[in-house]
């Protein structure tokens, strides 16, 4: 899978800046993003009141080899991401009428219905059982899926099962090296196994993935166990949001038991 360096840069800088200089450099890069390819290191240095050495340190910390490497990769990804919205050109925003909004709404409702109707209850129960038996749980995933599973993490913490979320990559890797037998690593979305194979090649803990889409079937060999908690083609965060919230109920039921189902919905 090709990395989108522009998206990656924006997401990393939203989550992990380490100094005032890095904030100002980020602001200036975003302001100049449409001509980043021609923005020299000296110009950026002048605009951001930071030395070239500071900029290069920052760029390298983000995973680029040099400033040239950075501007080439980010510029090229950015150009690809510039929208080609020919269909909408010249149209007024008011022409996005209520029918189009209704279509968006209906798509979301369909996604929820499809997810709900295809839930694999026995897999969800198995997964919850495995989670509550772990000594600790570490969550892997992209930033959005980690936020969705935050509720799951605080629920596990509530039952004295430490559940770690680290968004900083270096910290996560360092943490993974300290995991032992009995510690569980739960991966919540598809693309990370492909983008970060070193996590899986160096694994010291038991890895488990929650499957929410058929699209990452090819990567199942990275994991000790894959739970196909939903058997549909939906690959939306909306679907994951529902799944993340309902796993919480299975975890509580594993620990506290469940009632007789007399209450009406």
């Amino acid at each position, binding site marked *: 899978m090709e990395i989108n360096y*522009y998206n990656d840069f924006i997401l990393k800088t939203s989550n*992990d800046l380490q100094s005032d200089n890095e904030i100002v450099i980020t602001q200036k890069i975003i302001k100049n993003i449409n001509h980043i390819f021609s923005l020299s290191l000296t110009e950026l240095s002048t605009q951001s009141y930071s030395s070239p050495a500071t900029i290069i340190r920052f760029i390298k910390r983000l995973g680029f080899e040099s400033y040239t490497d950075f501007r080439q990769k980010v510029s090229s990804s950015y150009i690809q991401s510039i929208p080609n919205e020919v269909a909408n*050109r010249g149209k007024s925003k008011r022409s*996005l009428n209520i029918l189009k*909004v209704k279509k968006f709404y209906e798509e979301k409702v369909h996604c*929820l219905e499809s997810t709900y109707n295809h839930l694999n209850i026995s897999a969800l129960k198995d997964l919850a059982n495995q989670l509550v038996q772990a000594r600790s749980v570490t969550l892997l995933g992209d930033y959005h899926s980690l936020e969705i599973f935050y509720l799951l993490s605080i629920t596990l913490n509530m039952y004295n099962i430490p559940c770690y*979320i680290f968004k900083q990559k270096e910290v996560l890797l360092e943490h993974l090296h300290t995991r032992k037998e009995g510690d569980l690593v739960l991966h919540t979305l598809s693309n990370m196994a492909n983008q970060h194979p070193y996590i899986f090649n160096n694994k010291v803990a038991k890895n488990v993935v929650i499957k929410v889409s058929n699209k990452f079937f090819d990567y199942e060999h990275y994991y000790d166990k894959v739970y196909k908690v939903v058997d549909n083609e939906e690959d939306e965060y909306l679907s994951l*949001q529902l799944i993340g919230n309902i796993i919480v*109920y299975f975890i509580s039921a594993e620990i506290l038991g469940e009632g007789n189902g007399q209450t009406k919905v």
Partner: protein
Amino acid sequence: MDRPKYNYYSIFLELMKNDVKSKNELKIIQVIFENAEILNTIDITTLSKLSGCSIASISRFVKRFPQCTYKEFTHYFVHDFNKHKYAKSTHKELLKENKVETLIKKEYIGAKRNLETTFTDLDFNQLVEVIEMISSANSVTLIGANHSLEIFSKLQLKLISHNIPTYIFKQRNSLEMHLRTLNSDDLVIFISVEGRYQGRDGDVIFEYIKEIEAKTVLFTQTRRIETEDYDKVIYYGNDLDVNLGYYSLILLNDIIEELISYKDF
């Protein structure tokens, strides 16, 4: 002296997730997290031994929490951790009367209801006016809980690709530093369930933004707020559906993204 108003357990979780500064901090965090319930019985020397870090390193870590010594930190931390565990009784009550499948169905119906309210209550003209504000702003800054910001990170990428510098800074220090560079030509969008930015020192941040006269928009689920505090207010979801609002924010993000793509600005 009264205890500070902060929730030390929540601050700890946020630091762990987004802002671990060194390998030593990681070791300290791991030991604290895995002894959360009894941390107030572990003195600084014992924590130093368990983590393999110096007492000075632990003191530096504790300084990241406002207004406390090591002893106060461990006391407040355990108190806030235990307070958080009271949620267990809510789960217990729910599970006493319901089967898990019933709770899942409730979650699903609640999510659909939340989307439906967003769709039926959406003031389209008001939303178009917000888009006009976005397109004429010098820059756009999004402020809110991390989960909401993750949903709107797609919008951030879209706006930047339309040459509208758009910023999300999840680390508190980065956000504060960034806000100091804004003025009345900039737009700040708050995404807040309860109608106000609920982060640490949220009121101070809000007052500062009003002081510099930056334009403000609020996306909120709460209907009972002082709307005159903001230039525009967009409502989504239902008043009482705190965790269900994320479903609607995904819908709202998609609608705004589509509106932005209409090139009449």
